[in-house]
């Protein structure tokens, strides 16, 4: 234990020294690391897929599409914009700062800790990494011990592709993580449960370390009768069945009328048969529950309603079939905890207003799903509830839109990432006002000094007064417009002059 403890301090010290050396400040260095990271995914696809299959029985299609491709595309997005993003931001000029230069610089925080989760063990440990690197930080990655094969391959590959002093993988379980969290980090990015999120933030608070917490909750799905039920059912079941429901933004439960429920269940039976045949446990396209503990938890939920589809379990295989539960009480266990499995309970509501009331009585979800073709219903649900994010007429795919920040609110988390939001999470924006010794500017500035007088105060207040100036944003276009005018004028004059010569 003595030796292991030293290892925690060691790894953080190493990362801190690497950060202080300044090498991650260089944008070219960051670019090189990001390119190497991309190659890591490209060159080791099979190895990653094998590890994911071992940990979760994840089918190759899911490993490639929902883990590796997302990681590669995120890197492409970042690499093509890195130069833009790392530029200091200029702010619009105004009357007061006419002699000054206000700029916002981007500083990395320093040593960042990323704690990954087991359900998308590659994506959730390494997607934040690209943002952290892009922002110039040194990083320690703590992959989840609940997905050990993936943790091992990450620990094996990262040192082969990335700078060994700046980027470290520190695998381990609860005791190792607890010790690691006692160290001082400059930013902590955690993905996982609400409960552990609180523990992480509490530990972070000893050093006033800012955090992004990507947590969970029950993501509701509201469906009304205006939808194309065939497409809607497929999209919802897909969101529920990938990773056999172990997705933080899986549609957790359905809110709909009895009529919609009947049509939904009928379609679902059809679709599930089409996808997984009559014996879904033999389909190669479904994962398994990650552990016995989670299996037991899920098996118990089956007592909270009537299974109109599925309901089959196999403890040895950690198998639970895609299940739809009806006649579920809102107070039951399956309706109180995040399901994180292939069980979809349906709760009946008579109207979108009832759905809104139901949702608002609970903790704020990570995502809200609205299946309706009526713009008024979409708008109503969007504006009367709050959630980390929202997707209308589909599930899960919103996380692949680079420009949409992905994160929770309330119990479902704080902070966001993906695309630029990743870069922003790991960047401290340092404001800088550049003044000079310009005597004219100082003429105004001098009025602030004692001895104070009402006259000076009034003068300064007038200078600093908020005016409604037209935005200078369109100035370039006005100039081009002016150039257009000027060019015709010039041509005309030249023509005249030439004509005059000829006369």
């Amino acid at each position, binding site marked *: 234990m003595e030796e292991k403890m030293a290892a925690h301090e060691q790894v953080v010290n190493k990362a801190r020294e690497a950060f202080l050396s300044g090498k991650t400040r260089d944008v070219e260095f960051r670019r090189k690391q990001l390119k190497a990271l991309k190659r890591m995914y490209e060159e080791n696809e099979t190895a990653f897929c094998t590890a994911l299959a071992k940990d979760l029985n994840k089918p190759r299609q899911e490993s490639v599409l929902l883990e590796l491709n997302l990681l590669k595309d995120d890197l492409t997005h970042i690499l093509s914009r890195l130069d833009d993003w790392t530029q200091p931001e200029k702010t619009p000029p105004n009357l007061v700062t006419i002699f*000054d230069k206000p700029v916002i610089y981007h500083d990395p925080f320093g040593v960042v800790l990323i704690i990954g989760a087991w359900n998308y063990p590659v994506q959730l440990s390494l997607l934040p990494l690209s943002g952290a690197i892009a922002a110039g930080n040194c990083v320690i990655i703590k992959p989840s011990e609940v997905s050990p094969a993936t943790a091992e391959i990450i620990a094996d590959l990262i040192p082969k592709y990335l700078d060994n002093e700046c980027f470290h993988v520190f695998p381990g379980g609860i005791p190792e993580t607890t010790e690691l969290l006692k160290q001082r980090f*400059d930013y902590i990015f955690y993905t996982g449960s609400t409960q552990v999120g609180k523990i992480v933030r509490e530990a972070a*608070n000893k050093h006033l370390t800012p955090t992004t917490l990507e947590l969970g909750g029950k993501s509701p799905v509201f469906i009304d009768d205006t939808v194309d039920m065939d497409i809607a059912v497929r999209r919802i079941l897909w969101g529920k069945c990938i990773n056999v429901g172990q997705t933080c933004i899986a549609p957790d439960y359905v809110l709909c009328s009895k009529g919609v429920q009947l049509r939904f269940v009928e379609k679902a039976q059809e679709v599930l048969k089409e996808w997984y045949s009559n014996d879904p446990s033999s389909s190669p396209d479904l994962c398994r529950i990650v552990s016995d503990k989670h299996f037991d938890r899920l098996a118990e939920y089956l007592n909270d309603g009537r299974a109109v589809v599925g309901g089959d379990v196999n403890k040895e295989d950690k198998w639970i079939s895609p299940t739809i539960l009806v006649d579920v009480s809102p107070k039951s266990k399956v309706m109180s905890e995040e399901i994180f499995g292939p069980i979809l309970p349906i709760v009946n509501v008579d109207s979108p207003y009832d759905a809104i009331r139901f949702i608002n009585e609970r903790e704020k979800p990570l995502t809200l799903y609205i299946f309706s073709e009526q713009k008024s219903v979409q708008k109503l649900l969007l504006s009367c509830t709050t959630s980390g994010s929202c997707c209308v007429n589909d599930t899960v795919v919103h996380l692949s839109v680079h420009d949409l920040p992905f994160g929770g609110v309330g119990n479902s988390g704080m902070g966001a990432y993906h695309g630029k939001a990743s870069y922003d999470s790991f960047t401290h924006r340092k404001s800088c006002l550049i003044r000079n010794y310009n005597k004219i500017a100082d003429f105004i500035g001098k009025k602030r000094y004692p001895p*104070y007088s009402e006259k000076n105060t009034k003068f300064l207040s007038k200078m600093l007064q908020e005016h409604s100036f037209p935005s200078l944003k369109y100035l370039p276009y006005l100039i081009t417009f002016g150039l257009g005018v000027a060019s015709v004028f010039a041509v005309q004059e030249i023509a005249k002059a030439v004509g005059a010569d000829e006369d």
Partner: protein
Amino acid sequence: MVVVERAREAYASGRTRSLEFRRHQLMQLRKMYTDNSNTLLKALVSDLRKPMQEAMAMEVNEVLQDTTYILNRLDKWVKRQAVSSPIPFDKSYIYSEPYGVVLVMGSWNYPLHITMIPFAGALAAGNVVIIKPSEVSPATSSVLAKLIPQYLDEECYQVVCGGVSETTQLLQQRFDYIFYTGSTAVGKIVRDAANRFLTPTTLELGGKSPCYIDHTVDMDLAVRRVLWGKLINLGQTCIAPDYVLCSEDVQEQFVKKAKAALHEWYGDDPQKSPDLARIVSERHVKRLESYLECGTVAVGGRCDRSDLWVEPTLLVDVAKDSAIMQEEIFGPILPFINVKTHAEAIAFINKRSERPLALYVFSREEEVMEAFVQQVSCGGITLNDTIFHFGNKELPFGGVGGSGMGSYHGRYTFDTFTHKKACLARTYNPIIEKVLRARFPPYTEGKMKVMTSHRDRGEGRGLLHHLALLTTHLLALALGALLYYHLYMD
């Protein structure tokens, strides 16, 4: 707690979601300031014997301007932001949603400004707000407690006055956001309490803000700018220049010029000048007195506990590890630490355990300014002056590490108090659906190829974006040309 329950009910009523409601409240707030500026001034002066002009310029005028700034822009800020969607016919938006019930905890040194600027932003963002002004500035707190219910919606915006026990009780309640300004020690306590409910926080804390001066500057201007930053509110400003790093030569020049400047500003006996505030309490006077032992007094050095008075003081021959160099001074004592080069200064700053809230660099050399900006992590910087970055509404103001987390001012206040909700709206378009069906089981290599080739690789902005920009410019050019031709050449 009744106050929080009332706030929650008010939020649930939905009225703060309306833009019109918020605008009306902001206009009422502005009216509150204009109708009661004298009352507010009196209270500010009473709490800290703040000079009338400082109270006017840095508190009353500031909060008034802020409401105008917000009102001029709120319509734009509340709009949802459209972002690009990879799949045709999809629409992606980012909505700015209020968090709900917000707690704003003020501080005593600029009791109006520091409490009300976050408050106005939280209001503008659509939250209901509970304000807990500092009990260490009781006159201002009680004026706020009296006036706010007279002008604003009484249930949506409440003021809770009180000391440590009331604050502790308040912090046991559940809030959706907590904004705290004050000391690092209490900041940790606030965040711990917030963590019970996973409440996000912005903490505006403090620290020792270093001030580096080299010999290339216009010393007359530099000395006045540093002294001004140090002496407003008698040094009780979170971004006051805490200590100076300079060579012995610069120190000599500075002290000489400072003597002249101080005399010009405050006369022979600064204690008699109406333009200097007072220290907030005797405890702090004692603390500041003890710092005088950490070096040699070059200017000033007199204290008067009964008047809560500490004279503007320059302290030289200060040991790097002395008491005055351990804590944030928060008073009118300016210690000097001698360094030979700017690199030495940077190393000194970076070796310290906490990152400063502000950094000041006085130099005319690009290389020197650049070195500090690149190598020192801090909340914010003003080059060749002090305090000013705080006043620029386009610059986010906040700390990093021990000096805090989060930022505000201008639009950043609104952003602090809104949750950015991402929304993707898809359609049932059959053509698109045909392609995207490839994501459904049974999985095949063929389907995977389709999904792989149709994904958004994120290359985006390159050629198309620049082409679009060029086209708009060409159109403007053409329009100008066409118009002129039509008007003058026919």
